[in-house]
């Protein structure tokens, strides 16, 4: 089997909480990411779906080296970045880029579009001169769908619409010709009419330039426009994984089933039975025993209190972490 572009194994990120008392190690942790493994091949898009606080953003930041992993490995193109020194990270960062949720916040208001897009080249000293930087910035802007690019170079973010800003952010990521693009909720702040443009752009980049995309979202509705596969996270764990077709049409984990059932359908004729989970996601400091979903699970049984189920393959490429899979 070919080595995937990104291979994550046993990744864990814990944040200590409370005050450290006189040199004693803290005894309580936020289990932001807790034993996560995933593979991402070149040119593949994986959607990481979950509610806020499930650890999906922490996972992204850890993959980008903005948080240090507590344990586990992050193999990118064969190198383990989790334990790598800064120099290896700096080289890897050229190939892993990120775009953020809020296009109003992720661009420096005092820099022109040209400066923003050329900044990565500047930081990595990749372009020998200004003309080259400009040429590559223009190319990246056009790739991101801002044409003619020259028209945008001298403008400031506040002169652009939300969709255009998000395109600038994408251009600034593309200029380094990355192999992996981490997109953290890239459309949740955008109006519906603009949302599709950005999602389609991401899908095109994946197809045409075979850039792998890690698409982080809370909205199962937007997933299929971009992703090939889905990973559903709950309280720091991946509870279900599979192709979009598999997970969207035949979800196996009760959490995925519930999540999918409550996505509002844009048609009153399609009003479906909702599985509404009661209460809220438990405190990630005091995790439930056994299966961490059992307190809210509509089909939980006594065994769920004690057994912490691993992610097991069901058939095809689908896998889920639930002890009642066989019964269903």
């Amino acid at each position: 089997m070919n080595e995937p572009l990104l291979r994550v194994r046993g990744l864990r990120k814990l944040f200590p909480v409370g005050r450290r008392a006189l040199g004693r190690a803290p005894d309580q942790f936020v289990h932001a990411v807790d034993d996560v493994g995933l593979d991402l091949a070149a040119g593949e898009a994986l959607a990481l779906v979950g509610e806020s606080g499930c650890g999906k953003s922490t996972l992204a930041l850890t993959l980008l080296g903005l948080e240090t992993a507590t344990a586990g490995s992050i193999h990118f193109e064969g190198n383990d970045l989790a334990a790598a020194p800064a120099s290896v990270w700096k080289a890897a960062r050229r190939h892993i880029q990120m775009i953020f949720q809020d296009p109003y916040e992720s661009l420096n208001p005092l820099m022109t579009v040209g400066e923003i897009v050329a900044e990565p080249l500047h930081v990595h000293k990749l372009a020998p001169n200004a003309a080259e930087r400009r040429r590559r910035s223009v190319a990246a802007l056009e790739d991101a769908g801002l044409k003619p690019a020259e028209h945008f170079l001298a403008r400031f973010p506040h002169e652009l619409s939300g969709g255009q800003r998000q395109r600038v952010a994408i251009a600034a990521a593309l200029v380094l010709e990355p192999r992996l693009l981490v997109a953290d909720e890239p459309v949740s702040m955008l109006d519906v009419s603009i949302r599709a443009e950005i999602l389609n752009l991401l899908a095109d980049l994946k197809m045409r330039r075979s850039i792998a995309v890690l698409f982080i979202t809370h909205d199962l509705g937007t997933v299929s426009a971009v992703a090939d596969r889905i990973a559903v996270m709950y309280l720091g764990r991946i509870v279900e994984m599979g192709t979009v077709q598999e997970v969207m049409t035949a979800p196996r984990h009760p959490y995925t089933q519930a999540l999918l059932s409550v996505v509002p359908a844009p048609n009153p004729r399609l009003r479906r039975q909702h599985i509404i989970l009661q209460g809220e996601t438990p405190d990630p400091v005091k995790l439930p025993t056994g299966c961490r979903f059992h307190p809210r699970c509509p089909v939980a049984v006594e065994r769920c209190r004690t057994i912490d189920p691993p992610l097991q393959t069901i058939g095809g490429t689908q896998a889920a972490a639930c002890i009642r899979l066989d019964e269903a």
Partner: protein
Amino acid sequence: MMTEVTPHAHKQPLLEVKRLSVDYVDPSQPPAQALRDLTFTLHRGEALGVVGESGCGKSTLMLALMRLLPAAGRIVGGSVRLDDIELLALSEREMAALRWKRLAMIFQGAMNALNPVRTVGDQIAEAIRLHEDASDARALDRRVGELLDLVGIAASRRNQYPFQYSGGMRQRAMIAMALACSPDIVIADEPTTALDVMIQAQILQLLADLRRQLNLSILLVTHDLGIVAELCDRVLVMYGGALAEYAGVDAIYNAPAHPYTQELLKAFPDPTRPLQRLASIPGSPPRLNDLPPGCRFAPRCPQVFDRCHLTPPRVYAITSDHLASCFLVETQQTRGARHE
């Protein structure tokens, strides 16, 4: 579950809004026409969804109904009638007496809409004390407990402060507060944005249940067509401060007449049909202080023709319950008439 479109056709509407227009004035700029000639009705027990993208005037509409526009906002024309009361003719004092008693609101982002230094129970009690006889402290206290219970919050948490609540619970508390004086109409402004999908589903379920239990009229303001499809009977689609389409929920989703509604629906992902490619609407909404001379949607409309750039279309009736502001409707109607 489908709702018939015209259950109230002959009854007098609870709320009747006619040609409501609002400007925002800025001394250094031409006034922004935030709302133009908006006309719609709301019947008792009905849920009306007001849908549109940011800047389409839906929040302005909601504030104008309550007469809570910011200082720069001016109601420049129209009428808002609640039963037989013309709200725009009331004095500020009369309006204040009517607010919350008959028209209550659920604001977006309940963290900021609740006072951080007063307990939740106290803020609910305040509304009751203001509009009803609340001399019996015991009864008032019991009432607050019942309201919290109604929205699924343990009555024992009434003495806590908003910061001790989670986002979903704050929104529930906000709903309890809105119901405090048993209003006729609850205006909900993006009540579930910024909430997680599951919490959003819980809140929508709660609103639907309460509506049935209390025969509430709900005006749901949102950008999310999905939420409207789940909860509402009728839909008002707004674009650039004006009515684009107004119809029963089934007509809007299955027989949309206005190109904007049609495009919006194509842009909306459908979880039941994965792997379909989404359509987008190129361009961006018009600036309200620099509107195009013709139809406001013309610059982005895929079915645009010459006339659209010249004059704004009127509101045409497709059926008595289906209105759209588009020349295409008129063309179809005249063509239909000729064929007859």
